[in-house]
């Protein structure tokens, strides 16, 4: 907990809160200002929009600790505000609300448009209000209400604000505080105990939710590549982020794969089953893994097939990577990003593999963690996981 001092609706408040407390939870739970509504809690719906230093900001993705010294105005603080008074009358007249859940955020965003837009252009109003979602009205009444207030004010010769209502640079709400720190978390809430981790007795087949096809080539004959694929520890060392636990058998490996996509990091622990068919130079690895930190689980499978190139002097490796992800990391899906991650991963794998087959030692190869291959499936899935990651709107 740390103490946060700021001004809410022109009143100085000083309260302790955890650093993770959003500004929305801060005003709702600690000040009983429940007019600020929470919808999506990740910056998309606009219900939580408040004024920070006089201009709109999302209070669900703005942490109270970052607002030290700021001026916060919630819908309750706009009772007497001249523009909001006009907007409330217009919202009533134009039927611009039904259930009212979005209305506090709508009014804050509408007020900003009334102050800034030069005229009541419908398109600009619609674009300007697009960050506030309403599931009742269909927006027609809301747009009309905003239009009517802008028209009325411009008719009274009240012009738009030229500077957007700001003079300084940088994120609104921040920059008025001295430095501060919360008590460092003690060795903390360590990660949840291992519990029954994902090293179950049997690994079942499954139907992947997503399948990616990838291909790379190696300047070595197929038989040599296929033999290499049987050396689980060697293969693992070519896969960045993979660590084996225990001694792998030809049919089963256990280990972990750390994956990172931007700020999203996961460590999937699990096991995989390995199948090979020397006749067709193909194989399959089916695995399962869990990331305890994010409570996410993945199943994955990699099917590979080796095809001769250049009269057998080189090999094309065809991979089909399938995965299913559940839990926290599955919340946001951007399959395109997963493809990019898998592409980069496989490119790295191919380079390492070539280096290993050309005689480099494994220390030279794997800079980071030990690694390996059944795990490959986990690895790939994991990456996949990272790939998930985001939306909303930072531009």
């Amino acid at each position, binding site marked *: 907990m*740390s103490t946060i001092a700021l001004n809410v609706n022109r009143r100085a408040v000083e309260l302790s809160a*955890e*650093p*993770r407390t959003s500004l929305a939870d801060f005003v709702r739970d600690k000040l009983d200002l429940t007019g600020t509504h929470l919808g999506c*809690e*990740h*910056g*998309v719906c606009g219900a939580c929009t408040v004024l920070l230093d006089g*201009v*709109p*900001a*999302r209070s669900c993705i*703005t*942490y109270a*600790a*970052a607002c030290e010294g700021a001026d916060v105005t919630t819908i309750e603080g706009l009772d007497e505000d001249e523009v909001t008074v006009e907007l409330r009358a217009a919202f009533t007249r134009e039927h611009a609300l039904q259930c009212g859940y979005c209305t506090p955020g709508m009014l804050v965003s509408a007020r900003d448009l009334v102050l800034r837009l030069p005229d009541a252009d419908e398109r600009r109003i619609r*674009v*300007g209000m*697009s*960050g506030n979602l309403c599931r009742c009205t269909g927006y027609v009444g809301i747009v009309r209400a905003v239009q009517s207030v802008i028209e009325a004010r411009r008719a009274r010769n009240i012009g738009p604000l030229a*500077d*957007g209502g*700001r*003079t*300084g*640079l*940088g*994120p*609104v*709400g*921040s920059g008025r*505080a001295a430095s*501060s*720190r*919360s*008590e*460092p*978390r003690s060795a*903390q809430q360590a990660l949840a105990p291992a519990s029954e981790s994902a090293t179950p007795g049997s690994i079942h087949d499954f139907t992947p939710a997503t399948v990616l096809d990838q291909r790379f080539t190696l300047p070595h004959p197929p038989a040599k590549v296929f033999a290499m694929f049987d050396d689980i520890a060697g293969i693992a060392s070519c896969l960045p982020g993979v660590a084996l636990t225990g001694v792998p058998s030809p049919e089963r490996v256990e280990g972990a794969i750390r994956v990172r*996509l*931007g*700020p*999203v*990091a996961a460590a999937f622990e699990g096991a995989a089953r390995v199948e090979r068919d020397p006749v067709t130079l193909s194989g399959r690895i089916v695995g399962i893994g869990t990331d305890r930190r*994010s409570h996410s689980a993945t199943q994955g499978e990699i099917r590979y097939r080796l095809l001769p190139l250049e009269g057998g002097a080189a090999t094309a490796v065809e991979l089909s990577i399938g995965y299913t992800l559940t839990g*926290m990391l599955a*919340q946001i899906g951007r399959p*395109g*990003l997963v*493809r*990019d991650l898998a*592409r*980069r991963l496989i490119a790295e794998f191919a380079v390492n593999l070539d280096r290993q087959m050309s005689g480099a030692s494994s220390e030279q190869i794997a800079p980071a963690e030990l690694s390996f291959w059944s795990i490959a499936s986990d690895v790939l899935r994991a990456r996949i996981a*990272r*790939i998930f*990651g*985001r939306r*909303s709107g*930072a*531009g």
Partner: protein
Amino acid sequence: MKPASFAYERPCDLTAALSMLAAGSGSAKIIAGGQSLGPMLNLRLVQPELIVDISALAELKRAEIFGGELVLGALVTHADIEDGRAADVTRGAMRGVAANIAYRAVRNRGTIGGSLSHADPAADWISALAALGARVTLRSLAGARTMPVEAFVVGALESALHTGEIVEAVHVPARSVSAHWGYAKSCRKTGEFAHAIGAVLIDPAAASARIVIGAIDTAPIVITDAAELFGGRIAADYKQRFDVRVADALLAKAGIDDAAQRHIHVGVLKRAVQEAAA
């Protein structure tokens, strides 16, 4: 939808921030406006031990012109650029891009440095700044280095930033009087991340162009030797000479197998070229 617990520091200067970041060795995250990181924290996709809040650092809030080049501190917000509070050397090009990022409530806190650091392929600045020929300065306790924006973005959500390093400033060269600018993007819903981005800086007088095809799920395609896109030469009639087949081939080469996706990207790029010529 609430973040996991984290410790929070608000350093008073950049050196202190870099020290905290270095001491956190990978488990610390920088937050500025928090408009990209905030959603990921709330969704618990990201669970750092420590958040280092740099949003108050005055040295990252500068906007100055040196020798025709604009230097924007990492904390300059999209709204600062949109409203013209930050200086401009692009004759309005950056203002236009900034005004269409997400929503006003997001632009009031979201920063140019944060957007670059996040390296989302669908975000606006990585494409727009690459087309403008901008460079980015990265700083760590060990010192600073500067690189072109197109080298900074490595892939989806992957940048050239090392552990302990942050984006300090963006350097934008002045747009010459004869250079035309066009920027187009495709969003199914206003303000969401783009599905396709086209950014073009074309100077027919100098027979040169910088063409960017962005939002392709990986680092944008940046073409600095662009004559082939315009039938072999860049001249006043570049709009008529724009060759969609060459653009399509570039996308196919970049691994975009879906013909419909390529069609959207080519169409958006064509709109950017038309805007430049208008």
